[in-house]
């Protein structure tokens, strides 16, 4: 079911919707304004195909928080009603669904839980319809960093590539210095995210340790089922260290297949997307000592708030939260805080309130998250690296990244790209 009201599935809403459809799906939306009229938030996401988990855990993250917000009176007195639709991962469908959510379902706010190109398609819809839009899953830095892309009504409440790369580079350089790792190789999925993230990681690795050499690269396709040729290429290159930004099922396949070649005992592996429960709980023989960034992990930040959030999520949905879960939960938290600050559920006024807003959050590096005013993107989230062990808690200790350092280098990066 893709229609949600307050908690879970509401049969009446579905039947009501079905009746409306029977009359004709083009029927104009009713225009009636009661005092506590629910505020509809539209959410295009991917609920089918290979990355359906992105959609389901995004939805779970959102619903967990929406329940809390509604119990506390909703957005400025108006209860939130989520309208969540499947785009099947196709950008043109994402654009279509987003337009429909606003134009015929009467959604006043969009939470764009699309990945990569779908997010850019929804971004264009937000530009066109001038509706408040929160991107929750696209980590492509240019979405908010590039002033050509930027629009006043679009925000990002998730991590982004450039931050990850700076922290990853700094951490990896430290390890490389300690273990004398000079000969590196990269193995990342061959699409925009993989290429950009890898290039940035290498750039910052070299920034912190100039004598590093990347001797070879492997670029498996996204969703490639077999990594044998990639693994043998790595084995022949014999690098001292390996970087990979494979994720989800691709990463688990790579790990399982690498295992039977004993790959991870021969090379120090840095897999930025390992420390997410989507991968950690799935891999059957998780090697010890893989370095990973924190995607979402219960043990970082090491606070009772974070642990209890993960437990609440697990109790409700019977699965571990993912990186997508916290990012989407954060979107609702920010909406609630901004609506409270502006004392209205009006999209334009919420947008105004969001710029520069800081909230308390279990996902903040010091218990707080901020939407930076200048580029309307999330900063100050918990970010760090650690190493894996085969069983729970999987990544027992995480070294936190330094946000001061991130800001400095990010500014330099923006200048270099002509964004500033």
């Amino acid at each position, binding site marked *: 079911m*893709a229609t949600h009201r307050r908690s879970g599935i509401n049969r009446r809403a579905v039947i009501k919707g079905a009746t409306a459809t029977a009359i004709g799906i083009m029927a104009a939306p009713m225009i009636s304004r009661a005092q506590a009229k629910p505020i509809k938030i539209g959410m295009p996401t991917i609920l089918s195909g290979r990355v359906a988990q992105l959609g389901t855990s995004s939805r779970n993250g959102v619903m967990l928080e929406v329940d809390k917000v509604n119990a506390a009176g909703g957005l400025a007195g108006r209860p939130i009603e989520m309208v969540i639709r499947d785009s099947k991962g196709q950008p043109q469908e994402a654009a279509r669904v987003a337009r429909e959510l606003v134009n015929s379902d009467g959604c006043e706010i969009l939470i764009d839980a699309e990945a990569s190109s779908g997010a850019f398609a929804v971004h264009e819809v937000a530009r066109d319809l001038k509706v408040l839009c929160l991107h929750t899953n696209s980590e492509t830095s240019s979405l908010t960093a590039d002033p050509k892309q930027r629009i006043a009504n679009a925000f990002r409440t998730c991590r982004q590539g450039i931050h990850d790369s700076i922290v990853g580079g700094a951490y990896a350089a430290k390890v490389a210095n300690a273990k004398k790792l000079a000969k590196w190789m990269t193995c990342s999925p061959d699409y925009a995210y993989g290429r950009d993230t890898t290039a940035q990681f290498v750039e910052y690795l070299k920034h912190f340790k100039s004598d590093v050499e990347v001797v070879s690269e492997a670029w498996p396709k996204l969703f490639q089922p077999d990594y044998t040729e990639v693994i043998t290429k790595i084995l022949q290159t014999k690098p001292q260290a390996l970087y990979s930004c494979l994720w989800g099922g691709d990463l688990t396949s790579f790990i399982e297949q690498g295992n039977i070649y004993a790959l991870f005992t021969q090379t120090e592996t840095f897999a930025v997307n390992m420390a997410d429960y989507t991968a950690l709980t799935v891999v059957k023989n998780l090697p010890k000592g893989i370095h990973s960034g924190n995607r979402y992990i219960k043990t970082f930040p090491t606070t009772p708030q974070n642990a209890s959030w993960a437990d609440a999520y697990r109790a409700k949905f019977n699965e571990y939260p993912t990186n997508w879960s916290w990012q989407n939960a954060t979107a609702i938290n920010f909406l609630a805080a901004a609506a409270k600050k502006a004392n209205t559920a009006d999209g334009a006024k919420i947008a105004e309130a969001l710029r520069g807003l800081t909230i308390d959050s279990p996902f903040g590096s010091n218990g707080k998250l901020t939407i930076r005013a200048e580029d309307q993107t999330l900063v100050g989230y918990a970010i760090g690296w650690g190493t894996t062990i085969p069983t729970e808690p999987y990544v027992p200790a995480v070294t936190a990244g330094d946000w001061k350092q991130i800001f400095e280098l990010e500014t330099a990066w923006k200048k270099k790209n002509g964004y500033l």
Partner: protein
Amino acid sequence: MRHSFRRDMIIGAIAVTALVLLPLVWPNKAFIDFTIRGASFALFATSLNLLVGYGGMVSFGHGMFFGLGAYSFGLLMQRTGMSIPAAFALTIVVTAAVALAVGAICVRLKEIYFAFLTLAFQMFLYSLVILWVPLTGGDQGLRGGIPRPSFLGIDLADQRQLYIASCVLLVGGLILMHHIVESPFGYTLRMIRDNATRAAFLGVEVFRIKLVAFVLAGIFGGIGGVIMSLFVSGAYPEFANWTMSGEAVFIVMLGGISTFFGPVVGTVILLLLNDVVTRFTEYYGLTLGAIILLFALGLRRGLTDFLLDYWRRSPWVLAAAKRGR
């Protein structure tokens, strides 16, 4: 019954007028969006039916022209700053040129091998789109929106005006394609479909006729892509992927291949199905799959084919035919 181009034009003019006036009495944004998408897919699917229904050439790679239309139009607008009509005309030239080159190789092959080769070409083009990042943006597609400067007082950035433009393109495209299939060329094409050897004996240049049909279909498929790129203000590799060809084949099958308007009907059915089913369930595949089976195993043909058969077999028509004799 002789086909009359003038009659088509009159019906077309009435259709366009009706479509343009409709939002004035019924201002519904969802309908406008639906029609723009519908125009895109209807042109794309009808152009495929030129090949499948009239030429007997089942192409699995027709999406390549949809993608090509969207990308070349989007790139021309983003990179050169030319006017929309100029970019549109140039896009037609580009699509026609590619269709000519690909068609010259493909139409020599028969049946299933033609289907395979068109598919292979499409996937090759798709790989190029993904690979050539500096030009196409790779898997991220053409981002940042397609500029739509006004021309002749028309502003396609306004959804209402884009709607009117799409209606004009749709109706105009359908009239032209109808004219093509009812022309002597169209009948030669049918003859080749039914018996290529006999057509060749009668002095028909089979290769040339097939190639022309392939190029014409490519051009109209490309126009469908242009409309889609205007609708989403971008172009994405999915447009050039084989799933897009699959979608067109699916539409043609749903609507029916033996009537001219079959693909238009199929487009409306598929888009309605898609929009309604995704509203109510995340098990889109299960629902759509069941509906497909209903069509394939129940009706055993497209909707208009089914209705046409039903009509022909109705006692009234049979009686009229008897009287006529």
